[in-house]
């Protein structure tokens, strides 16, 4: 099949899915096309969207899949259309989220120590916003809960996976 058509199929699939579509899913949806071709065309598509900054959409790789997202510069208009509420995260939530993201699996007590304040309420908010989840219990005294981030966290911050978190500045002695 010619490349242009493969690209068209990929666009159609990614557009309709809404959620990030993994390469695996794309391959499964196009059984008669060699996976290698799909990967190549996909990469070309990503490049193509990147090269056209006047277009409203970007094809981005996020949370283990591909997704169409609007360009940041058009955010004001999208917001004016008023279909979507702007995301809100307090400073405290953000800090706590960062600690959990980098330190996971992590206990609440560790978060408390790093922040220097009790973090139960903030963690609860993050749980409710589905940015953080309970991974289990630690096998120590009191069997404390341990926390980690969710796929939604990756989606919201546009990360391919946890290894793509911005690197932490190391503490100099």
């Amino acid at each position: 099949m010619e490349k242009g058509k493969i690209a068209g199929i990929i666009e159609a699939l990614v557009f309709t899915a809404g959620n990030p579509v993994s390469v695996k899913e794309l391959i499964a949806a196009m059984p008669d096309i060699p996976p290698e071709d799909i990967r190549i065309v996909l990469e070309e598509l990503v490049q193509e969207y990147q090269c056209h900054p006047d277009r409203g959409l970007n094809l981005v790789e996020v949370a283990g899949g591909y997704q169409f997202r609007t360009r940041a510069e058009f955010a004001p208009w999208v917001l004016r259309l008023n279909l979507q509420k702007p995301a809100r995260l307090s400073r405290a939530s953000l800090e706590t989220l960062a600690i959990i993201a980098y330190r996971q699996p992590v206990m609440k007590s560790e978060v408390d120590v790093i922040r220097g304040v009790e973090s139960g309420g903030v963690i609860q908010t993050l749980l409710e916003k589905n940015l953080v989840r309970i991974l289990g219990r630690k096998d120590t005294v009191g069997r404390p809960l341990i926390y980690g981030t969710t796929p939604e966290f990756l989606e919201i911050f546009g990360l391919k996976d946890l290894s793509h978190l911005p690197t932490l500045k190391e503490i100099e002695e």
Partner: protein
Amino acid sequence: MEYRVQLDLFEGPLDLLLYLIKKNELDITDIPIADVTEQYLQYIKMMKDLNLDIASEYLVMAATLTQIKSRMILPSPEPGEAEEEDPRAELIRQLLEYQKYKEAADSLLSREILGRDTFVRSVPEETVVEPEGPGVEASLFDLLDAFRSVMKKATDPGAGEEVLALEEISHYRISLAQRMDEILLLLSKAVEKYPVEQGIPFEDLFEGEMTRAFIVVTFLSLLELIRQKLVRIFQMELFGRIWVRPRLAPINEPEPEPPAETPELPLFPLEKPAAENPVEPAIAPPAPAETPTEPQPPAEPQPTNEPQPPAEPQKPEEPQPSTESHSSIEPAPPPEPQAPIADSPAPEENSEVPGKVNEDPETGSGTQTS
């Protein structure tokens, strides 16, 4: 109820210290502890003067700073082994660690954030609150109804053994954490029994001992599991049977501990609600859930970036006296308003709402781009 007004400028004592260090352009690794301590205490005093409830962590830090300061002043006891650690070392390490994550938070914030800078075809909220699986989400009221019917069955005057069970309550100890684990285990096993729904009917959770304590603890555990989003409760049709289903793959196989050898974790005062009046504490919650609907005003300040803490605590008082005056028609109106203010939950309720709102604007200012 714990409620504190936080100076929204600072997230905590470490944040305040970092702020002071930045403001004075100090070297974080060589803090002039005397100066910083003094300034820090000034801020604490200011918070006190503003009548803000100072989180205990601030006071702990004040004590720590003072202690470090005094240790710095003291000459080291034996000049021979002068290689004593800098008294500030631990604090500095803590500050650097905190700063690291503060910066990490900033770098997260500078990314293109979904719902702020970039958007997808489906509303982000949809992915956040995903309607998963079949059926409709059961409401708290459905749950309470179901709980009441379980309780009724257990305390049916026809069954004599329940009275006996009541007496054992004071010795009965099972922690929420324990029961939560048991429920999760039960749910993971239930897959064989109810393959389609992959969950179990609400009533099945209460199989076994039908004591009040057991029922109450089980119910509270279930509420906690729901709160932690570890289970989902749903109905196949409105007002139908309630099903409980695990949300995640069962987490790290808890060893089924026999409830008999108990209290490694004596959690909450479970015995109290169980022994006194088991139905009421469960019925009580809906009351606060209803009231927040009426104090709307605090919700409005949201768009403004300015935090507007206790909006108008006076307003809810107005309706209160009127309802109160029905019952007691005494010719002494002046002292009367005092009472409703004191014991009506309204002002407290109200004070909580702005608290929540308070967080939002602060967020807004941090997160929103114009």
